[in-house]
């Protein structure tokens, strides 16, 4: 505990706009920060997610409101923007899920090599972005 009293250098006040943009993250670093960002995004949008659950399961009538939000929009929010927000949730969930499974696999298999970190990061990003594009195309009625 005596270590705690020793003064160590502190680096503070990193400028988000001038300093963060100069960081060159490896792919595993991108997976890591996006894991955090996607989690934070879903936390902020949690009431919307519960609303989606509520209207989609409660009754036939509410299910119609659920569908109409995508087709015609809701309140002052147009349908395309509503779809875009839901697509953001879809991406966030996919990324968070796959990156989380990567974490679990690393914990169980003790897979902590630099090479595995990179190759699994590529798989994570490819899967989450690929599936988001496929589901996004479906959501916007491209097929």
């Amino acid at each position, binding site marked *: *505990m005596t270590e*705690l*009293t020793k003064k*160590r250098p*502190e680096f503070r006040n990193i400028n988000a706009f001038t300093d963060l943009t100069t960081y060159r993250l490896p792919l595993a670093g991108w997976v890591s920060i996006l894991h*955090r960002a996607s*989690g*934070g995004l*879903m*936390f902020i949008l*949690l*009431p919307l997610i*519960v609303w989606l*659950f*509520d209207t*989609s*399961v*409660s*009754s*036939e009538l509410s*299910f119609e409101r659920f569908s109409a939000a995508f087709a015609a929009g809701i309140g002052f929010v147009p349908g395309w923007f509503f779809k875009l927000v839901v697509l953001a949730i879809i991406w966030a969930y996919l990324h968070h*899920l796959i990156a*989380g*499974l990567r*974490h*679990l696999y690393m*914990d169980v298999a003790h897979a902590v090599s630099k090479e595995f970190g990179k190759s699994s990061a590529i798989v994570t990003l490819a899967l989450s972005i690929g599936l988001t594009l496929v589901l996004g195309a479906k959501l916007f009625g491209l097929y």
Partner: protein
Amino acid sequence: MSVNFGSKRVVTGAHYGLRDWLAQRVTGGLVALFTFIVLAQVIFSSGPMGYETWAGIFAAQWMKALTFVVFVALAWHVWFGMRDIWMDYVKPAGIRLALHIFTIVWLVACLGWAVQVLWRL
């Protein structure tokens, strides 16, 4: 790290050690498992996905019980994650405590709403 004892003790920290680490992984694993169970029921359902099929997935008693457990696990999981974010980026204890309280209120409110929806199915 600055002084962290006596009157300078940080009151809004994590529980260091195995418990939170393990609970974060167990709750995350439960949510992942639940995701695949719902996905499987959607994929293997017959006919177009309308209200009946979708609501029917959650209406089964075993599914209701499982969904309830997963909702609680999810809220707990989000608490770990958000607490870690506040701990990393917000240093003043007062603001951090306020954000912790906001996080708990936000999560419990959403959890209550989701459970209410589930219960009346």
